[in-house]
């Protein structure tokens, strides 16, 4: 089997002491970067680029890739412990992960996150290895109408995130969509809702909004009452700090779900790991036996999105390595690095540089194992953070929030926005508005609007293009089905109530 020989070649490259060392450096750095809110893998890879010029290219790409997928492991740590999304893809993890921490189950949450990341990450690499070329060709069939349909499908996830009041969920989503529109319009170069501030010309950074609405608001809610010394109960004993066998069993579907959805979304250039995590969460909730429990600390609600954002990295490398098309910021820098070293990614990369490609793929297997070994033992350690008394933790969280936001573009304006979104998030909490739909709207708003306008540009104004193409039509039907579902359920429950009353 060709794949096997290639893999052997790959491992012979990946398992050399030098490459192993750089792999470790990469995944370690990646984990650290992921844990820190705000600082993302893209910026880190860019910062380290000059150091790689003297290195052997294979070692260098192994390290940089390690940072990339390693960061997805760390992102869940602060999400679970502090309700601070470490990375945009970890926002969904905050929903159930933080609730689990409040119930004393921070350990299992962190643990399942690492395990899900490992499983899905490995599946992603397998996908990259086995089915990269055909999947890449399939991804090319996604044009603007398909992207629009995908974004609409993503937005229907609000149905799963809205909690009790759909109206409030929709309102939050609309605000998120509006926030996404602030900035410069791509097509006409007109500026929208920038209030004359030049800093807003590029739009509002997602990190600022998510850290403000989640972290700062959370701190404010907790400031309402004078705290005791301990934040949450942290159970003692290793057994309580790890996911149980039952947990693992419950998450079987979540592992699968996260891996598949993450990988497929990753292959599409432009669709990011955030969308993957939302879709995976929604799918998990849709097929769960107890959907109403999601949002209160359900372990699958952590496993699914965390898995998704890891297998997405494997998927994102597919268009990069097979077509030379980067799918996201971080992969764009990896592309740039390859170009700078004189290696041209593209359809011929696998042929021209087999040692590099297969070495990289093999190193990703190794990297995922390293990350699991690195992260699991750290779980009890991280869980101890929750023992820190309130009054030390809260200024600390605020400090981390400011650092995280400032590190994005060194802009004080962003930090002011953090304060603004902090109080907005607090108001939302007080008025019972769910935060997740707002984030969802913000993440998808840009992409959706762009895809719609691109589609209309292509079809000269005919909306029908979205339903006449098979792929997009399928997704739109699915979206409609999801939207109608809660209504059907309501009707059904009315009917049941009516029947009960009759009897």
């Amino acid at each position, binding site marked *: 089997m060709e794949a096997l020989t290639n893999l052997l070649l790959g491992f012979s490259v990946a398992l050399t002491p030098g490459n192993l060392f750089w792999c470790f450096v990469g995944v370690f750095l990646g984990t650290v970067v992921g844990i820190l809110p705000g600082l993302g893998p*893209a910026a880190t890879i860019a910062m380290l680029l000059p150091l790689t010029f003297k290195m052997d290219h294979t070692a260098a790409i192994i390290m940089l890739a390690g940072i990339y997928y390693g960061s997805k492991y760390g992102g869940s740590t602060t999400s679970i412990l502090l309700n601070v999304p470490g990375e945009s893809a970890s926002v969904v993890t905050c929903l159930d992960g933080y609730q689990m921490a409040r119930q004393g189950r921070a350990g299992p949450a962190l643990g399942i996150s690492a395990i899900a990341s490992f499983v899905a990450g490995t599946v992603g690499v397998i996908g990259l290895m086995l089915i990269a070329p055909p999947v890449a060709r399939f991804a*090319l069939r996604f044009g603007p109408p398909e992207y629009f349909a995908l974004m609409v499908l993503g937005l229907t996830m609000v149905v799963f995130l809205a909690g009790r009041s759909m109206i409030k969920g929709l309102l939050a989503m609309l605000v998120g969509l509006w926030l996404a529109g602030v900035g410069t319009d791509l097509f006409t170069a007109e500026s929208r809702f920038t209030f004359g501030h030049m800093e807003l*010309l590029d739009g509002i950074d997602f990190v600022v909004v998510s850290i403000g609405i989640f972290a700062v608001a959370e701190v404010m809610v907790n400031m309402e009452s004078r705290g005791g010394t301990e934040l949450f109960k942290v159970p003692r004993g290793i057994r309580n700090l790890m996911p149980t066998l039952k947990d693992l069993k419950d998450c079987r579907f979540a592992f699968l779900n996260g891996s598949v959805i993450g990988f497929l979304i990753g292959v599409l250039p432009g669709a990011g790991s955030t969308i993957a995590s939302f879709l995976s969460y929604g799918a998990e909730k849709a097929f769960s036996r107890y959907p109403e429990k999601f949002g209160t600390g359900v372990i699958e609600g952590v496993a699914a999105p965390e898995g998704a954002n890891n297998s997405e990295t494997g998927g994102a490398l597919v268009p990069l390595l097979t077509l*030379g098309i980067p799918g996201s910021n971080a992969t764009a820098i990896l592309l740039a690095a390859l*170009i700078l070293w004189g290696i041209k990614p*593209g*359809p011929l990369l696998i042929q021209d540089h087999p040692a590099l490609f297969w070495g990289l793929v093999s190193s990703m297997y190794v990297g995922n194992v390293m990350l699991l070994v690195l992260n699991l033992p750290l779980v009890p350690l991280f869980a101890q953070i929750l023992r820190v008394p309130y009054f030390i933790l809260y200024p600390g969280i605020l400090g981390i929030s400011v650092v995280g936001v400032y590190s994005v573009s060194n802009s004080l304006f962003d930090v002011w926005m953090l304060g603004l979104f902090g109080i907005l998030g607090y108001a939302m909490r007080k008025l019972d508005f769910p935060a997740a739909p707002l984030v969802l709207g913000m993440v998808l708003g840009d992409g959706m609007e762009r895809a719609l306008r691109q589609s209309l540009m*292509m079809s000269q104004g005919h909306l029908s293009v979205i339903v006449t193409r098979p792929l997009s039509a399928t997704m739109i039907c699915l979206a409609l089905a999801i939207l109608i579902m809660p209504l059907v359920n309501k009707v059904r429950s009315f009917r049941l109530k009516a029947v009960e009353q009759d009897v």
Partner: protein
Amino acid sequence: MKRSWYCLLLITSGLVLSGTGDFAHAAAFEPTKPIEAVVHTGPGGGSDIFARAIAELMQKEKTISQRMQVVNKSGGGSAVAMSYLAEKKGDTHTIGFFTGVWVTNPLTTAAAKVMISDLTPIVRLVLEPAVFAVKADSPYKTMKDFIETAKKNPNQLKQSGGSVTGRDNLVRLVIEKATGAKWVFVSFPSGGERIANLLGGHVDAMVIEPQEAGEHIKAGNMRVIAALTDKRLPSFPNVPTLKEQGIDVPVIPQARGVLAPPGVPKEVVQYWEGVFDRFAKSAGWRQYLEQNQFEDGYLKGPALNKFFDELAVQMREVLKEAGAKVVR
């Protein structure tokens, strides 16, 4: 009393003389701390890669004594980067890497208040050529084929590109004006998406840089049907230019170069000119130009200023024709 006055006089005249002595040998500028190189894209963007490559080359060849650090100031096209540089008035350790966007952006965006004439030009380094590419299995073998089809079916053909004020669209507009053909322009923010849409058949053509196109052509996915330059490109000797194919339009250059904040002393400008003079002759730079298929566009001094002025005039005209809002 008289003696102390005399001493004072001696001392002050001594100081003054030594001062003028210093003025006579104006100290040549040498950087004493790391240089900040401002780019208007985020990490991984075109300018970012360009600046990093130059920083690396300069480090290797020891053209400058200090480290060059790339600072990303993305936002509003080039607005944030330009205004950052304008604020650093007189700063001797900051430079900026400009592209054509730095000239056009202030023309269309009201909030971009800093114009390129406000900054201190140092040198233009390269001209990035572009080619017109279609999918390999499309029926268009020459530019003429494409134009003919576009003329017969107005607004049916599609081209993917970047912002509507970017070069991709401006090329389309000048060709449309010269030939009467009309086709649709679809904006995609990232280069990857533009290529993906072409390869996926969702658009029919795109304007692309030769080094990007090269890989896809080798793999048999793309075909180049016109070189958007004055002369044929060395990497595509069989591809005729627009002019050769009978389409006489001005070449819209994508220039890249270096400039400095306003109010920078003459010695600093001279220093940088010297650095880039040496740099442009170095073997590493020549190799870089070849690898990336850039055209050597070395230009400095008054010729550079003239280039900026002419470019601004040309851009204003083209943009107005395009119906884009020109605010300056």
